[in-house]
């Protein structure tokens, strides 16, 4: 008996369904092929038997849900009978379909050949759904037809067995650490979480055993999108529901081995289709298409799983309503001279209603739809009614696709009223924007005029009006213009002007003057720490610096290298903590002013408070909306923001009419007003808030306390969208605080729940990283999750990156905070997720309470239990004096922590034990070094942002305090205060304290004598220094550099003399079939980089040399990978460092940023490459233009097929194929084709790029899949565990033994790499690496003798 196999996920669903009602025949599917013409029935039976014999899935039995046993047998009967006509035959089939199948015993199928008069045979198959889906039926029919036809000609081989094994491998890979299943799950949870019950045409009934069917002929073929659109409209017509949720069967086979395997693989995915009465069929169809595109990458996630995830299992709960399907497989078949037409008799169980459209086959055939219903839910007359009405709607809508469907359905003309702001996707075409809905702010009400012109116009029209006012001093528009022009003259052509001035006349004058001069300003806060100022200056490289009373020209500015037409550059703190400069053009600023002025209602008689710091873009709103409107800008003093009553009193004294406040501050205002401790001055008529989510609770307080007539505008906009993108007027009675609709001129799309902004108001992008352009316009993904309300307003749901999951539940801290605030004695609340020492995540709540007896955790928990699901109730509670906030007033979630002694009991820790004092010391030292307070024992030093230098500081201080040496390695191995304390208590007795890892960190400090950029008169033509030209990437890189630049390329080659260096280079080029070098463009210098320093002036250094070793320790690769990098950095030339994605911490997303040291730097190679990046990073901090280009596993150019024989993957094949076994490596990793890598690096060198670039534009390659390709190629190689494989190859020669040694050393494979961000480098074309490329690589291996020829070679298709 054969080995039991697991079930495919699709089979599990069917098995479960059958097990719920073992006596039901509903899972039988049946089809027949009408064969017209002469048929040799004996030959037919031979053909049929060979095809069925090869279809393993049909021969399975299922002892239980965990196993199937395949026993292929030819011992089954082909029923042969005669029928008087097709009707009689069909009746026989319907009776046969009532057969109840026992999955534990089989058989799963029945075959019959019914003769109906001369020249007409009906070949009938019944197969249980667990063994076949619609595609499988079609596949079987085609194969029998082809086989029969071949046998008639006396030709053809029996079909090869169609095994389930590759499908099971695919399923395991999908569910495995590739993370795809988890990602798909998150996608669907985000898409369907919170979905209302799908509208149905009849009350939900339990899945019955009987299905009723009506067949209707269609006037013309329909596409799946049209079918979805019409059916969604039909549901709206019948139920009034604004959104249809339809089930769409998907074949789930493209790109899978299942394409050639008759089996059950299909899935059903829920499609959400909003239907508004005035949408046209075209619009609905576009919506359906967008929904299809957006969900397509996630179609493998089983709907049974999703139902379980969404708690929609059992009872009357439904994930989707009607199921709609267009069958793509129905064309005619040839059986020798006879012609076959496929007819479906039963398609399996129907939960509610299903519409399946077939194209029809044969002469004059019309497309038709089979409408099936669950007989337990619909009566026959109801089915007839639906079939008729649905068909009528389809006819009417397809006749008038451009008319509002309601009108088209009624046969009336359009009422002419435009739909509300929710429009179907008219967004940029392309797969990247599978938007389900686009919100359009409409056209600008006035033309976008540059702000300099508007302000000058105001000055000309009302020269004596007050432009700026501060503490009683006033500057009229004429005075402002004169001062600004004088200032502009002092800029003398500077393109980017750093303005480091406190709030005051001088600052406003400088900003207006810079804009008048056609330059851009870069605000710097005089209160910033010097390091931040330096980092921003190094990033932006302005041409001039304005400080009180001085305009200083800066060396090192980009001058004309700055993008033309910028208005300002503002730095945001990226998630990495490094400032990112957002470059906003004059066009975008003009666009914003034109769109916002009318919405805010700013008038010439307004007095607008200038509240925001000048380096926040809220100040742009205050300054330019005011001055462009001819109103007065009232500058606040620092004292005014000291308290709410003081601010409001000042507003009253100054007659402020428009108040623009950060939401965090406004929350205080709303609270103070409702508590009666402050009063809103009567002069204030509009309050604009923004910067973080407004709390509905505070909005309610505000409305209760503030008289009508004061407008409260809630604005939303990232700096990248030029201040504000959407605005809502918050009105009483709204239980939410929406962020509203796009400003005029702004368009917003909601893609997978994330808000994407488009339109002329967008910034150009980041300095050196413009936003991607999609369909001719810029696009910015905000990272903010939103939802569209039926009234067309957006509701902010949180940051995509703030959300985290607790036990599989998506948790939004804001939601819990909001619930906490509803407690009458909670004044402020903040919630953060924390990973405990045991790795288990939990939620911690922090509250500031009203005066009174202390709030208890039990009290808070009781309160929350009343309004939140259990999974998101925090486990620990702390009453704190204040909530930590970022400088912008947002809750600083990173700074939140659980104070010891509060909340849930901790794992036995040293808090009260003998090492409590040591723990306190550790925590104190960390706090000193990291510059923070309130750390807890479970905090991870590196997660807190600690980097190598700080690690060294920590161990230095600890060593001094403890009186013995503490190695830095100890901190790396024990990164939490608790574990470090434990380790320190045992350190005296721990042998080998001077751990070898300590060595690499010592190298990670750039010596102080390494200079910043050298000022050199570059040679003509410019010269580029390239290292590592003789490796695998090097020859390609050399070729690409010669193409991308006009430079001479100097190749430093390790060789005793120039002649042998040249020879090595020529050999390296020839080995990869690259052309000879052009005369006169390449110099070759023999050099040992680590030993003898190079000198010379280079336009750029491209450092590509590295020792790649899987087994060597740090000390042995240090010379090439670290020392050479340091030596080359000393040249002081713009630096391009070729690195590896292997430096990234495993498991976490790989950002395009330098990384602090982490535990994943487990071998000498990774350590050395990390140290090299760290040196480059520090050199960049000193002002050297430097870039790091990180490659994945480098593979040959897919169209040429070369391989790097020393790469691990090929070493594994070379060791494994001769012994017929390959290791089962459950790892997905990015692969970077060498030709792409070379083109991208060369282009980035040519454009003078800086920063970190991940060169991984392709989806990661799962090694199991790659191994499957190798098998498809024809190699017989069993998948065995790594341990088994290592033993198998160990005896296979020195090379194999070395490969085995790597696996011995590596132990467990590291956790998979997280998703890799690939920004700039994604713009360069990259050939795909898939089965086809693998076949070419293997062809090349065979040609060059690296691998033996496979016995039979597979086809790449």
């Amino acid at each position, binding site marked *: 008996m054969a080995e039991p196999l697991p079930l495919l996920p699709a089979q599990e669903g069917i098995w479960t369904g059958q097990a719920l009602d073992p006596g039901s025949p509903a899972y039988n599917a049946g089809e027949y092929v009408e064969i017209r013409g002469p048929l040799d029935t004996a030959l037919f039976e031979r053909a049929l038997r060979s095809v069925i014999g090869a279809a393993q899935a049909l021969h399975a039995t299922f002892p239980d849900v965990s196993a199937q046993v395949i026993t292929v047998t030819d011992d089954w009967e082909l029923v042969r009978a005669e029928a008087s006509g097709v009707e009689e035959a069909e009746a026989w089939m319907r009776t046969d379909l009532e057969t109840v199948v026992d999955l534990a015993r089989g058989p799963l199928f029945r075959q019959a050949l019914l003769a109906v008069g001369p020249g007409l045979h009906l070949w009938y198959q019944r197969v249980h759904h667990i063994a076949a889906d619609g595609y499988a039926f079609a596949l079987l029919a*085609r194969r029998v037809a082809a086989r029969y036809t071949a046998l008639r000609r006396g030709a053809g081989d029996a079909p090869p067995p169609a095994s389930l094994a590759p499908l099971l491998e695919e399923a395991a890979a999908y569910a495995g650490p590739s993370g795809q299943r988890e990602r798909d799950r998150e996608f669907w949870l985000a898409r369907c979480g919170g979905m209302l019950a799908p509208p149905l045409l009849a009350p939900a009934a339990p899945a019955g055993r009987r299905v009723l069917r009506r067949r209707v002929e269609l006037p013309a073929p329909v596409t799946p999108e049209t079918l979805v659109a019409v059916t969604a409209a039909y549901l709206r017509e019948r139920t009034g529901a604004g959104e249809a949720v339809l089930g769409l069967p998907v074949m789930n086979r493209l790109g899978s081995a299942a394409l050639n395997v008759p089996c059950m693989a299909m899935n059903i995915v829920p499609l959400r289709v909003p239907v508004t009465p005035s949408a046209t069929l075209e619009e609905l169809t576009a919506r359906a298409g967008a929904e299809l595109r957006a969900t397509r990458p996630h179609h493998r996630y089983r709907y049974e799983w999703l139902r379980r995830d969404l708690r929609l299992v059992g009872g009357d709960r439904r994930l989707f309503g009607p199921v709609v399907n267009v069958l*793509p497989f129905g*064309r005619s078949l040839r059986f020798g001279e006879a012609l076959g037409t496929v007819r479906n008799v039963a398609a399996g169980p129907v939960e509610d209603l299903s519409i399946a459209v077939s194209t029809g086959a044969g002469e004059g055939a019309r497309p038709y739809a089979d409408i099936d219903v669950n007989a337990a839910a619909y009566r026959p007359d109801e089915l007839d009614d639906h079939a008729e009405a649905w068909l009528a709607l389809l006819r009417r809508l397809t006749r008038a696709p451009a008319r509002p469907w309601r009108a088209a359905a009624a046969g009336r003309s359009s009422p002419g009223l435009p739909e509300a702001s929710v429009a179907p996707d008219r967004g940029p075409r392309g797969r990247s924007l599978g938007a389900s809905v686009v919100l359009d702010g409409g056209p600008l009400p006035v033309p976008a005029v540059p702000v300099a012109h508007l302000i000058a116009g105001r000055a000309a029209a009302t020269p004596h009006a007050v432009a700026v006012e501060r503490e009683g001093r006033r500057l009229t528009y004429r005075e402002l213009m004169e001062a600004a022009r004088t200032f502009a003259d002092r800029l003398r052509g500077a393109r980017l002007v750093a303005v480091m001035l406190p709030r005051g006349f001088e600052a406003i004058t400088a900003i207006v003057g810079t804009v008048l001069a056609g330059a851009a300003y870069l605000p710097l806060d005089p209160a910033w720490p010097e390091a931040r100022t330096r980092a921003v200056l190094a990033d932006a490289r302005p041409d001039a610096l304005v400080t009180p009373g001085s305009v200083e020209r800066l060396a090192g500015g980009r001058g004309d290298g700055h993008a033309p037409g910028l208005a300002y550059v503002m730095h945001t703190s990226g998630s990495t903590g490094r400032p990112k400069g957002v470059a906003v053009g004059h066009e975008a600023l003009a666009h914003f002013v034109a769109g916002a002025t009318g919405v805010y209602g700013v008038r010439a008689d307004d007095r607008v408070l200038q509240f925001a710091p000048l380096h926040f873009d809220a100040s742009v709103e205050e300054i330019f909306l005011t001055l462009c409107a001819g109103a007065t800008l009232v500058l606040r003093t620092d004292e005014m923001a000291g308290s709410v009553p003081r601010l409001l009193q000042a507003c009253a004294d100054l007659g402020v009419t428009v108040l623009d406040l950060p939401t965090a501050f406004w929350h205080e205002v709303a609270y103070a007003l409702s508590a009666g401790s402050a009063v809103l001055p009567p002069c204030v008529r509009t309050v604009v808030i923004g910067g973080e989510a407004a709390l509905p609770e505070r909005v309610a307080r505000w409305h209760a306390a503030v008289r009508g007539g004061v407008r409260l505008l809630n604005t939303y906009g990232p700096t990248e969208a030029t201040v504000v993108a959407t605005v809502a007027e918050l009105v009483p009675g709204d239980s939410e605080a929406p962020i509203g609709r796009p400003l005029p001129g702004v368009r917003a799309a909601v893609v997978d729940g994330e808000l994407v902004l488009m339109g002329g108001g967008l910034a150009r992008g980041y300095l050196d990283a413009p936003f991607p352009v999609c369909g001719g316009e810029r696009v910015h993904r905000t990272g903010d999750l939103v939802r569209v309300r039926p009234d067309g307003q957006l509701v902010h749901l949180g940051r995509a990156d703030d959300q985290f999951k607790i036990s599989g539940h998506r948790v939004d801290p804001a939601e819990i905070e909001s619930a906490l605030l509803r407690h009458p004695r909670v004044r402020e609340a903040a919630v953060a997720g924390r990973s405990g020492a045991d790795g288990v995540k939990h939620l911690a709540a922090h509250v500031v309470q009203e005066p009174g007896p202390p709030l208890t955790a039990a009290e808070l928990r009781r309160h929350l239990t009343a309004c939140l699901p259990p999974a998101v109730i925090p486990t620990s509670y702390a009453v704190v004096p204040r909530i930590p906030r970022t400088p912008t007033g947002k809750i600083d979630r990173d700074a939140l922590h659980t104070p010891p002694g509060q909340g849930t009991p901790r794992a036995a820790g040293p808090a009260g034990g003998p090492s409590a004092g040591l723990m306190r010391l550790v925590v104190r030292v960390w706090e000193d070094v990291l510059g923070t307070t309130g750390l807890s024992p479970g905090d991870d030093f590196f997660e807190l942002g600690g980097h190598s230098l700080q690690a060294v500081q920590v161990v230095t201080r600890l060593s001094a305090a403890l009186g013995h040496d503490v190695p830095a390695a100890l901190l790396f191995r024990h990164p939490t205060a608790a574990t470090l304390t434990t380790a320190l208590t045992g350190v005296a007795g721990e042998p080998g304290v001077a751990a070898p890892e300590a060595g690499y960190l010592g190298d990670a400090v750039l010596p102080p004598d390494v200079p910043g950029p050298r000022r050199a008169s570059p040679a003509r033509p410019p010269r580029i220094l390239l290292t590592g030209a003789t490796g695998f990437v090097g020859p390609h890189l050399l070729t690409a550099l010669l193409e991308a630049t006009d430079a001479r390329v100097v190749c430093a080659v390790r060789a005793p003399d120039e002649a042998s260096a040249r020879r090595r280079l020529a050999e390296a080029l020839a080995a990869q079939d690259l052309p000879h070098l052009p005369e006169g463009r390449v110099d070759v210098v023999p050099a040992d980089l680590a030993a003898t320093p190079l000198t010379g002036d280079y336009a750029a250094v491209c450092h590509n040399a590295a020792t790649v070793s899987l087994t060597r320790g740090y000390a042995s690769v240090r010379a090439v990978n670290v020392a050479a990098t340091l030596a080359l950095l000393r040249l002081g030339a713009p630096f391009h460092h070729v690195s590896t994605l292997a430096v990234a911490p495993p498991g976490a997303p790989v950002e395009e940023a330098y990384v602090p040291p982490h535990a994943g730097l487990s071998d000498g190679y990774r350590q050395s490459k990390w140290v090299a990046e760290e040196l480059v990073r520090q050199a960049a901090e000193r002002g050297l233009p430097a870039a790091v280009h990180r490659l994945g596993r480098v593979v040959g150019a897919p169209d040429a097929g070369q391989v790097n024989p020393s790469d691990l993957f090929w070493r594994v094949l070379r060791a494994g194929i001769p012994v017929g076994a390959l290791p089962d490596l459950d790892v997905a990793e990015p692969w970077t084709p060498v030709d792409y890598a070379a083109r991208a690096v060369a282009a980035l060198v040519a454009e003078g790029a800086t920063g970190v670039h991940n060169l991984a534009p392709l989806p990661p390659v799962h090694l199991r899949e790659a191994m499957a390709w190798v098998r498809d190629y024809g190699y017989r190689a069993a998948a065995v565990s790594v341990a088994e494989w290592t033993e198998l190859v160990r005896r296979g020669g020195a090379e194999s033994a070395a490969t085995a040694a790597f696996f011995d050393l590596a132990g467990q494979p590291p956790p998979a790499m997280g998703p890799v961000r690939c920004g700039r480098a994604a713009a360069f074309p990259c050939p795909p690496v898939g089965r086809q490329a693998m076949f070419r690589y293997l062809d090349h291996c065979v040609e060059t003798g690296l691998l033996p020829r496979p016995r039979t070679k597979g086809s790449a298709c």
Partner: protein
Amino acid sequence: MSAEELRTRVAELVGELPGDDDDLIDHGMDSIRMMALAERFGVDFMDLAERPTLRAWGELIRG
């Protein structure tokens, strides 16, 4: 129905022009698009699905 029309149509559907032997699924071809092509060119969906390259499809259309 020419090979050129096929290339144009495929390029429209996937937003780029794949190489003759590229796996079109790698280029984003899905069953829905494939079905549209099958209808347009009067060939069988499954023939397209089995060998998703421009070269194979060109042969199908000529055949």
